[in-house]
């Protein structure tokens, strides 16, 4: 694999499968009494989070610690970052501290690319603006494979995945559309036209404005979070209308094929894009997505740091 994991769009099919297969093996660590492997002992992983995200940061922290790496957490609030130190200077400080890998979440698309130019260590993108969130897509693919494939191996060929929600502003959507395609799935996006990028016709997915039409032909439905503030920028008239036309309620869940699963990257707006009963149903993978996130992130850290640095 490359020195960095910045975008799911950069992963070849073989690379993606290697990560998923490695994650399968590493998932077993969670079932053991001693949840540790010595592999990254003495290596330092820095979590550089400019955006609040306890859930993702903890996931990366757990992954690094299970591999015996040292973890340093650097969050924006109350640090020199908040005082206006530039990204570049923060990077150089981390470099001086000997960070072997930096996991970065930032509001600006392209921040990981800049970081990679300033440090020697490996860069893992934990979300850059609206651009990509590759480990989310990987853990989503891992989850789909476990639930819908008898033996969790190989790709997702032929599976029909539908993404619903604010695709325009969603890095999770971009990463998933890229990775799902790479793994052979058929992707459809459903959203009001205002929440789709102008050039979506050129993307490797089908587009529909009609959620009900798509449901019976869906193996995996992935609900994206919709920010209520978008209403004030005229992306949709009201939360009520959005929920009516694009929300996954109990009736719509019943319209899905029996084997179909419901996913959500979190955090959820219960009652807006997804009904509470749907989120809590047995079809929902929301809880296991969290556990799978640790395994996938362990695989990523191992594959980046576990070998020679060339």
């Amino acid at each position, binding site marked *: 694999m490359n020195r960095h994991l910045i975008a799911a769009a950069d992963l070849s099919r073989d690379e993606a499968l290697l990560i998923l297969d490695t994650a399968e093996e590493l998932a077993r660590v969670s079932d053991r009494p001693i949840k540790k492997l010595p592999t990254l002992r003495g290596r330092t992983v820095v979590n550089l989070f400019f955006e609040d995200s306890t859930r993702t940061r903890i996931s990366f922290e757990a992954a690094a610690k299970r591999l015996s790496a040292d973890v340093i957490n650097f969050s924006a609030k109350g640090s020199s970052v908040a005082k206006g130190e530039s*990204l570049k200077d923060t990077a150089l400080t981390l470099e001086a501290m000997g960070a072997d890998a930096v996991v970065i979440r930032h509001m*600006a*698309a392209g921040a990981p690319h*800049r970081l990679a130019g300033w440090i020697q260590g490996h860069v893992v993108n934990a979300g850059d603006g609206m*651009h990509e969130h590759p480990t989310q897509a990987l853990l989503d693919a891992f989850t789909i494979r476990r639930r819908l494939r008898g033996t969790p191996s190989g790709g997702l060929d032929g599976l029909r995945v539908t993404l619903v929600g604010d695709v325009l502003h969603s890095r999770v959507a*971009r990463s998933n559309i890229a990775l799902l395609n790479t793994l052979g799935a058929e992707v459809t996006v459903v959203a009001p036209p205002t929440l789709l*990028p102008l*050039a979506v016709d050129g993307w490797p997915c089908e587009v529909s404005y009609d959620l009900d039409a798509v449901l019976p032909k869906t193996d995996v439905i992935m609900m994206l979070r919709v920010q209520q503030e978008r209403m004030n920028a005229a992306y949709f008239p009201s939360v009520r209308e959005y929920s009516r036309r694009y929300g996954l309620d109990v009736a719509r869940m019943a319209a899905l094929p029996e084997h179909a699963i419901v996913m959500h990257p979190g955090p959820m707006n219960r009652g807006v894009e997804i009904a509470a009963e749907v989120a809590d149903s047995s079809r929902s993978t929301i809880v296991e997505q969290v556990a799978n996130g640790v395994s996938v992130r362990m695989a990523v850290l191992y594959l980046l740091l576990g070998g020679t640095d060339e």
Partner: protein
Amino acid sequence: MSEGEGAMTSTWLIRKATLPGTGRTDLLLRDGAIAQIGPQLSADDAQVLEADGLVALPGLVDLHTHLREPGREDAETIETGTRAAALGGFTAVHAMANTDPVADTAGVVEQVWRLGRIGGHCDVQPVGAVTTGLGGTRLAELGAMADSVARVRVFSDDGRCVADPLLMRRALEYVKAFDGVIAQHAEEPRLTQGAQMNEGEVSGRLGLPGWPAVAEEAIIARDCLLAAHVGSALHVCHVSTAGSVEIIRWAKAKGWRVTAEVTPHHLLLTDDLAQGYDPVYKVNPPLRTAADVAGVRQGLADGTIDCVATDHAPHPAEYKDTEWADAAMGMTGLEIALRAVQQAMVDTGLLDWAGVADRMSVRPARIGRLAGHGQLPAAGAPANLTLYDPGARPEPVDPVTHASKSRNTPFRGMALPGRVVATFLRGVPTVLDGKLTGGKVAA
């Protein structure tokens, strides 16, 4: 400046320069004017410059630069900016008003004007703001600026759009009194909130908010109609889309007084350069698609776009050495403009050197109402000349060698053809053999 500094005005004999439309010929410069043009001239008191293989253009005029002084001297000063201009073959540049303080009063424009004269590397013509503080709500004292020593004729809020249609109408009407022209930065602000790059296939993929072409085109269409309605002159800054060119072509066909400019970077570069998120490619208006590049090239070729203007926008390193969203918008351009135009227009057969003389000197001087510039070389004309070697081996652009204080050129590392060999301002060389002479020119 006093005429007593006679040592600075010397006599020059330029041998065998190629004059577009005429061919190889000699030019004799004396006392600040072109004394003679013809084959095999001689003058005993003249310094000789062998110009065989060089194209002789009227001194280039730039309608759109940001010299940053007063207020942003960390990026550029009038001194360093005019040095860069001279090295680029320019004998006159217009300095945009978005300084700090804004050039919205006679006081500030006169300051800029004076600093230009002191430096002496090229003439600096201040541009006055249209609205006070560039706030877009109240007209600035356009008349005072026109009457001042700086004799402002071009007014622009560039950096910002004069978005209020009523205010734009009033401004267009008001400047008729002194033959002024409003130069519009066409960008409907409601459509470009938070915009980072051209809205299109690339922006969708990169997750960067888009700056749609319609935000430029809608304002241009509106302003052409307004200018026609009130019978005034409109100049459109940095045209960047094929659609804008079509609208201007339509307006000109109607006989309306609309002029337009294009930057060197919009003649050559496209939005896919944003893919590595390197902010050296971040600019307003943004780099567009290949179809847009083709459209503006064709517009410049057929004269729909009247001139090349660099929109030279220097920024210190820390404003570009950061994440894209945080970075300043803008690219330098003075030192590479003519080379870029050769690559985009001459070497592609779209424009000949006579056309370059027209688009980079004659028309911008006319639009800027600059007497003394933009005159084709002829006996009696002011000796403002640019000698350029189109056959110089293409060299990669290295901003470290530039006279500008700032290094933010998107052409860094790209090989561009040609080389400015000499620049004469009123008969005094400001650049010889591609280097500044330090010779200060009497105004």
